Structure formats: C-alpha cells, structure tokens
C-alpha cells in the first residue's frame, strides 16, 4: 500500500522533472511578435464600448476570411501508411505542402508538428495490447513561401507498459493529428510568422509519401 508520504514525494518529484521543460525559443518570439503589433486594451469603461464592438467586428470578419479562405484537403485513404514494425520505429515522411490560395503574406518561421499514432503489439506470452498515443515531430520545418517541400524524420518508441517490454511486433494502424499524422486526417498547421499575427493557417498536406521501418532492438 502506498503511503501518503511516498505518494507526495513521488508526485513532487514527477512534477519537478516534468515541469522543467524549457519553452521553445520560437514560442517567446511568437508572443512578442503578436503583442508588438497591438496595444493593451483600455480599461473597461462606457466610452470604450464602441471600440470593443468595433474590434470585435474586425476580428469576426478576419476570422471568417481566414477560415473560408483556406482550402482544406482531407487526404484520401491511399495516404494511409501501415507496416509491421518492431521495437523502436523510424518513420520518415516526405511531405509536400501546398498553400491555396497563395498566402497574402510571406510564410516563414519555424513549425513543429505533432499527431497521434496507434499501434498494436503482441508479446511472447501472447498478451496483446494496444498502444494509442501521440508523437511529436521534433524536426523543425522551415517554410519558404507558397508551395513548400520538406522532409520530416521521426523516431518514436511505442510504449506499452514498461520500457523494456517493447519487443513484440507492432503494426501502425493509423493516426491523425497536426500535419495529418500517419493517416493524414485532421491536419492543422499553426505557428507564428513575421507577416501574420498567428499562422497559418492553413496548410494541409497535399499528399504524403511515407515509409515505416521497424528496427529490432
């Protein structure tokens, strides 16, 4: 039985380590970039009401333009990637991005992608478990403008119950997330650019060319 003291100790230790992650430099840059362009709102007053309404209207129109101006492509089932793998998984995508319509501002900056992945594995003792998790593509993508071509490389380990138990056979059965993950569904590109308050918006991968390779430990 776990005592309160031990649980407290373990929790504080866990938070100390988990909370020690430094924010990516691009995050602060994005914040300062966005805030530099706007002034703090005036403290609420009767005189400020018309201004609030005016800003709200501008925001709604801008959001509508952004939302409806983006062409959302949902990748087809042909984009699904699946292959038997085992142990650590190397995933390499060759991704071609296409912005349509052409962005009104230069698209530049750093983007990070993340998504979800699903796996199923079996152990020597016939226990089969599912791994349903997220992965993060740590590779930084640097975008030019207009049509973009970039290669991302990802290396993940499917975690089941313990780190040393990843020795079964796994099949990536699909996933979704930003930049479409494995299946390419639900992709969203977000980030910040020098040319827009928050970006963009919207690129969905036009197509995915991928490969999945399993590496035995």
């Amino acid at each position: 039985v776990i005592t309160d003291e031990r649980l407290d100790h373990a929790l504080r230790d866990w938070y100390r380590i988990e909370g020690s992650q430094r924010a990516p430099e691009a995050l602060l840059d994005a914040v300062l970039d966005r805030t530099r362009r706007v002034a703090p709102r005036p403290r609420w007053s009767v005189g400020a009401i018309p201004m609030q309404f005016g800003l709200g209207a501008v925001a709604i129109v801008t959001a509508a333009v952004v939302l409806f101006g983006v062409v959302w492509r949902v990748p087809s089932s042909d984009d699904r990637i699946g292959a038997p793998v085992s142990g650590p998984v190397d995933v390499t995508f060759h991704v071609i991005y296409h912005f349509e319509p052409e962005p009104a501002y230069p698209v530049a900056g750093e983007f990070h992608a993340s998504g979800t992945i699903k796996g199923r594995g079996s152990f020597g003792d016939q226990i089969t478990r599912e791994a349903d998790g997220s992965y993060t593509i740590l590779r930084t993508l640097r975008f030019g403008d207009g049509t973009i071509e970039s290669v991302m490389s990802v290396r993940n380990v499917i975690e089941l119950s313990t780190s040393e138990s990843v020795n079964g056979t796994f099949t990536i059965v699909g996933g979704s997330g930003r930049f479409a993950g494995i299946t390419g569904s639900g992709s969203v590109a977000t980030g910040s650019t020098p040319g827009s308050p928050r970006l963009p918006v919207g690129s969905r991968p036009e197509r995915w060319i991928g490969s999945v390779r399993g590496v035995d430990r």
Partner: protein
Amino acid sequence: MNTGLIERAMNGDHEAFSIIAARNVDRLYGIARIILRDPELAQDATQEALVRAWRDIRSLREPDRFDAWMYRLLLRSCQAERRKRRAWTDRIHVLPIGGDDGIADSSATPSSWGTAVDGVLDRDQIDRAMKRLTPEQRTVLVLHYYLDLPVSDGAELLRIPSGTFKSRLHQARSILRAAIDADDRLVMPHGKEGVA
C-alpha cells in the same frame, strides 16, 4: 514579479512586457505541458495566455497579484485548448532528434523513464496513473504539488470553493494510488509482466 515592470507594461511599455514574458514563459509552458500532456497544445495555450495578458493587462487591478492573474489566464487557455483537441492521448515516447539528418543517436534516449523514485514508485508508474485523471483533477494537482499553492489560493485561482478543491485533490490522489497499486500487481516477482 517586479511590480515596477508590470506597471510599465500596464502603461503600454512593450519592452517591459517582453521582460515579463521572457521571465515567465518557461514556467507557464511547463504548467501547460503538465496539464495538457501535449507539447504542441501547451505551446498554443501558453502563447494565447501571454498574448491575452498583454491585451488585458490594464484590467489587472493589483500589480502584485500578477502571478495569480497570469496563472488564471493560463488555466483558461488550457481549458480552451483542451476543448478544441482530444482530451487525452496515451503516450509514445519521443526519442530526441538532433543533427542534420533529424535522427539522434539512440543513446540520447531519455533514460529517466523507469528510474526509481523511492524504490517502489517510478515516474513511469506516475505517468500511467496520471492518465486516469480528469483534466480538472490534474489541474488541482499541478496547483498543489507543482506550484505549491495552499488549498485556499488554489481554490481562489480556479474560482471554486475550498471544499471543492480539497475534494478534487482527494479524488485525484485516491485514483493515483489505486492505479499505482493495480500497476504493481501486474508485475510478477521475476519482473516479467503478467495478467492481473
């Protein structure tokens, strides 16, 4: 936090706000990451909270209450991000990627997973147990164990009664304890996994 800096920011001094943001961004990102369990969502939530802080900084009535106000903005942003995205995903460990080829040496893999905390509990167990908690329960744990806020301050931050805060804390701890106990029972004496 330096109240002089905050007052300058309240007067529209963006340079002062830049210093405030730089001093807070790591801590805010750490909190968001723990609550949301997703680095991308945590970045979005942190960015939104800081931008909101700048836009609304004149609504801050007491500069010396900046930290609590900032935490409240962050928690709201986390809630908003959570609503937009899926609530929880189990995790797949990400190996560090470095170098031009984008793939790091496997020796750079975080070795901390599985490191014993006190001989029984390890971070991996805590990590799995955390998945059983609701976002609200994870939030009270963060406020209590990570920010070391007393119950009254945490409750005020969340704008809930102290009793509710205590109740969520108690529930979260009970769930964690049960999950860790169950996890322990899955491990056979010789270290191989079995079925409970």
